[in-house]
């Protein structure tokens, strides 16, 4: 059946939610993270968590890395009225500083996020999310690489991307 314009508009909004989720992780922006979920959402990793529980876990986990990068490719969305199913493929790279456990390295996870999205009060947000890890790997970061210098990026609101955002 042919997609309608309304379908395409809804799918675009749903895809955006996950892209904002990625940004929220990488910039450690808890307000942005919270905005991706309905207040009563359930997030299932190894166990089911509330939005508050998930954000608290994220705060602890993200601080273990010097950088994280959640980069999304495939996004498949299937609409059914005011609900939708979505599956997002994301490669998340977590840079681990050198420590007693080993030299600097990247923990790379190829995962899928599977969502039940719901349209409530004029917004698509995640009602239920499962994270699925398909494969993971640790890649070495060779020492003495030719860096291109600092970039001014940071994992908080001093990142230059915030200053350039438009006020609506």
């Amino acid at each position, binding site marked *: 059946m042919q997609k309608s*314009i309304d379908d*395409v*508009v809804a799918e*675009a*909004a749903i895809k*955006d939610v996950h*892209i*904002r989720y*990625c*940004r929220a992780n*990488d910039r450690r922006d808890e307000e942005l993270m919270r905005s991706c979920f309905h207040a009563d959402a359930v997030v299932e990793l190894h166990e089911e968590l509330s939005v508050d529980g998930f954000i608290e876990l994220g705060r602890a986990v993200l601080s273990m890395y010097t*950088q994280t*990068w*959640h*980069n*999304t*490719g495939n996004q498949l969305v299937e609409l059914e009225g005011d609900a939708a199913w979505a599956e997002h493929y994301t*490669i998340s*790279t977590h*840079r681990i500083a050198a420590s007693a456990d080993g030299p600097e390295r*990247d923990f790379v996870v190829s995962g899928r996020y599977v969502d039940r999205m719901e349209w409530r009060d*004029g*917004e698509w947000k995640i009602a239920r999310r499962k994270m699925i890890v398909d494969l993971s790997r640790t*890649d070495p*970061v*060779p020492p003495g*690489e*030719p*860096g*291109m*210098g*600092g*970039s*001014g*990026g940071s994992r908080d609101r001093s*990142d*230059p*991307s915030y200053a*350039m*955002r*438009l006020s*609506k």
Partner: protein
Amino acid sequence: MKKTLDEVLAEAAIRDIQMRYCRACDRMDFELLRSCFHPDATTEYFGTADLDGFIEMGRQALPNFVKTTHNTGNQNVEVNGDTAWAEHYTVATHRLAADDKGPERDFITSVRYVDRLECRDGDWRIAKRVLILDWTRVDPVGDIGDEPAVQTGRRDKSDASYSLL
């Protein structure tokens, strides 16, 4: 608030610009690169540049690599009337030839491009672009054996993609 159709159309046009930008870098198509920007655009990569200066920098830098691929994932776009903000995640892989610093290898940069875009006369283009380098790595290429029997990409208009236009 529900997205409007006009917003979705603007977002699509804005995402396209980044796809053209990546293609322009990888094919070293400086005409296409220029078309991504308004004439008075500025870029902040390793210092601030105007459009001519930026393109000249590309002309100098890209030939230092055997190949480049700029592959974009996340694209955050926020449209507000005739202006927009965008953040694009791109993994740029730069193949380095064997030299006195080491064997053949890939210099991988994970970058974000953050844009201010403006729609002028119905045409969305970049007005300001900032490059943020989040992390880099050098990966060995290793011995891949015989090249696969498919045509390889070229960094000019002899690339197969141009013949289908």
